């Protein structure tokens, strides 16, 4: 099974060298070696059927068959030791705090612009900067309630932040379903480990939503808002509504009357207090944003400005996860929190800066170029793999609209053993932990480990042929001999 496995250069999550598993992987390693291809295949099939029958699917756009696909699931879990996680957790808490202060600031006093830490032109030029949000008082000053921050590891195993997703990050439902399926098809794999539970995420999310509800006499009415069943993340919207026990609404289920939001029920209109919206800013309200939106609710922004309804995440948070603003996040942490960043960024060239642009255009063959407002692996150039023509095309785009592009050196990403046909091979992985920001920040232990299923590929997005793994954060430290020892948790 591991005969052909190669450990070569990039950081390997499981092995230090061929057949030398790290301490926290030893038990998994032993169990995997006991399995034969037929057993693995059976388990993989069990997992596939389970996903399909439960309808745990996403929709791929641009595919003529308009199909629901299951998100490929890999049976080898990714394991993160307790001490490693501790640092990640503190780093993410620090980051979401700074991003929220930044949002409040740019839509308020704009100190960070006035003091020259972030260039104003960058902010005013950001596509996702919402003038409509200036001076709006937001419930409890929280803008980004839910954040999914993508982490990768360099050659030495250092965790780096690749990007923050502070608008409507998706994927958390797969984290929960992956764990459930893992328990079903490979229960014995857990036996040597104390894996931190993640099942309380929907409960924490609900508490976070309640925290920002406008005060009134009764229990707040909370809803999840979806663009509808044809949205690629529809499964997740429905999943979260179900897990929290709240209604899942579409724009057409809501109506604004006299500054309040109501949903249409069989018994008439019923007031809504908090909307966990999974609809992009652009489509939220045809009166405020795109007038052709069929997914939104006319007057919603007005109700929001009046403080009669909470929107989660708040409109305008896209300014904080703009890829050209991302390089300034470490400075934000220093500026607002007077702390040094715990998690480092990836070196980033901002094409809007003449020096950077010059460098990028001269080094396209060794850089990743990204459009500042795209996600899901769209609008990207992998310089070292792209043909000459595509590189030239991107160079032209960069020259004509530099604000819209950034570039980063190709970070190799760590690799992880992944089942390929009947044996294991190394495949690149990243990690998207989910952070909730309500009364206090809560980081879900683990997150979504995405894996690029094509050999050598660095693109892990589900829309580009990526898969995922169950991710285990251990409660206990595992000593080099492979024996677990208790570690006090850092947060109560």
């Amino acid at each position, binding site marked *: 099974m591991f005969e052909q496995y190669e450990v070569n250069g990039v950081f390997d999550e499981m092995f230090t060298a061929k057949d030398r598993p790290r301490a926290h992987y030893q038990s998994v390693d032993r169990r995997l070696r006991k399995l034969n291809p037929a057993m693995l295949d059976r388990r993989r099939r069990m997992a596939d059927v389970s996903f399909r*029958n439960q*309808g745990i699917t996403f929709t791929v756009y641009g595919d003529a068959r308009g199909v629901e696909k299951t998100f490929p699931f890999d049976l080898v879990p990714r394991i993160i030791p307790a001490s490693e996680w501790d640092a990640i957790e503190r780093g993410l808490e620090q980051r979401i705090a700074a991003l929220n202060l930044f949002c409040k600031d740019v839509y308020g006093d704009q100190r960070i612009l006035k003091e020259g830490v972030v260039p104003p032109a960058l902010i005013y030029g950001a596509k996702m900067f919402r003038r409509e949000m200036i001076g709006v008082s937001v419930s409890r000053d929280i803008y980004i309630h839910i954040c999914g921050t993508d982490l990768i590891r360099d050659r030495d195993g250092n965790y780096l932040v690749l990007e923050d997703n502070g608008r409507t990050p998706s994927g958390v439902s797969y984290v929960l379903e992956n764990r459930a399926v893992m328990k079903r098809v490979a229960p014995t794999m857990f036996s040597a480990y104390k894996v931190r539970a993640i099942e309380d995420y929907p409960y924490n999310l609900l508490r976070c939503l309640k925290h920002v509800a406008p005060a009134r006499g009764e229990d707040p009415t909370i809803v999840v808002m979806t663009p509808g069943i044809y949205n690629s993340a529809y499964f997740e919207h429905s999943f979260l509504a179900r897990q929290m026990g*709240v209604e*899942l*609404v579409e724009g*057409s289920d809501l109506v604004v009357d006299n500054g309040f939001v109501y949903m*249409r029920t069989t*018994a008439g209109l019923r007031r809504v207090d908090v909307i966990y919206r999974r609809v992009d800013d652009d489509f939220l309200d045809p009166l405020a944003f795109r007038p052709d939106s069929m997914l939104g609710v006319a007057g919603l922004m007005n109700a929001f400005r009046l403080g009669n309804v909470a929107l989660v995440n708040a409109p305008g948070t896209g300014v904080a996860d703009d890829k050209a603003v991302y390089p300034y996040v470490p400075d934000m942490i220093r500026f607002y929190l007077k702390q040094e960043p715990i998690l480092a960024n990836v070196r980033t060239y901002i094409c809007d800066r003449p020096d950077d642009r010059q460098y990028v255009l001269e080094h396209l063959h060794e850089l990743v170029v990204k459009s500042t407002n795209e996600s899901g692996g769209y609008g990207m150039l992998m310089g070292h793999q792209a043909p000459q023509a595509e590189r030239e095309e991107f160079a032209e785009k960069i020259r004509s609209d530099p604000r819209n592009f950034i570039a980063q050196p190709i970070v190799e990403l760590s690799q992880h053993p992944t089942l390929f046909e009947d044996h294991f091979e190394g495949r690149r992985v990243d990690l998207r932990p989910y952070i909730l920001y309500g009364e206090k920040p809560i980081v879900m232990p683990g997150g979504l480990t995405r894996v690029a299923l094509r050999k050598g590929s660095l693109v892990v997005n589900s829309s580009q042929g990526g898969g995922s793994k169950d991710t285990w954060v251990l409660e206990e430290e595992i000593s080099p001999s492979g024996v677990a020892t208790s570690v006090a948790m850092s947060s109560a």
Partner: protein
Amino acid sequence: MSTDTSKFFVTRPPRPMLARDADSVYWMSRYAERAEHIARILLVNTNLLIDVGDLAPELQERQWQSVLTIMRSAELPQLPPDPPALTAMPGTTTDAPLAQRVAHHMAFSSDNPNSLFNCISRARENARGIRETISAEMWENLNTLYWTLRDAPARFDESPEDVYRQVIIGSMLFQGLTDQTLQHDQRWHFAQLGKHLERIDVTSRVIATRFQILKQAESKLETPIRNIHWMSVLRSCCSIEAYRRNNIGDMDPVRVASFLILEPEFPRSIRFCVGQAYAAIAAIRAELHPQAIDPAERALGRLKTQLDYAEPAEVLKPGVPQYCERIQHEIAEAAVAVQATYFLH
């Protein structure tokens, strides 16, 4: 954390239900029910023609035409249909036997809104939009059935009966799961309403269509063949065993009709279903509009009373098909009223 126990008392107002969700629950249930009836009708008809096809060839075509009439699918479409994968199959070429063509048209055709596959797809599509409203068991059952049916065309000709039975059992399982895993609140009542209205609709059309055909042909048929035909009508309505317990001896058209229409305790009879549909709409109305009068409730209440006090002669006098048409008319009126009152806020 402190707990406010007063929240758990029964005085808590019922949870509101999105109008769109009610709409979807209703149609999900209707389509699941429709699939069961279509599968059964196809199953019964196939078996019937194995028995009598050669003896009464002139009946064969009329018999299949009647299946299409029942499903309001008047004509066979020009073949071949999509998806392209189907074109290679024997049932989809124009020279294939009529039985096979109808079977494929009714089972998988995407042009036929009432094909088994379309019914299950629509039931599932509705369910998919309200997964947070229904139970996980209900969803998984429909979803599994959908995937089973998607994989079915390849093995269909080997044994159509297998596929029909899978749909029948899958649909019944779905209705059972609805009873056993869903709180019997508004959601359940809307599901019951959809199920029973659909059952009344199909059953009344089966009776009307078959009566028309059999009446015309009856003089030409010998008793054993005639019996087989009337038995197939009962089988199409899943009622043969219940009928036999109540009526010993030959198949008598009058008795068959009055059993299917007026029997008070049999869950497939029209009277029984009207009673259930009425109970469902009355429960919904009582919860949502305690003071008001509901047009759907009124329409079903009238029909229920009419059936509760009807004598078999009343059914026969205008003619069984005509009586069934009147029922359909009233059911349609009730369905439109439900739509207007609860789904279109």
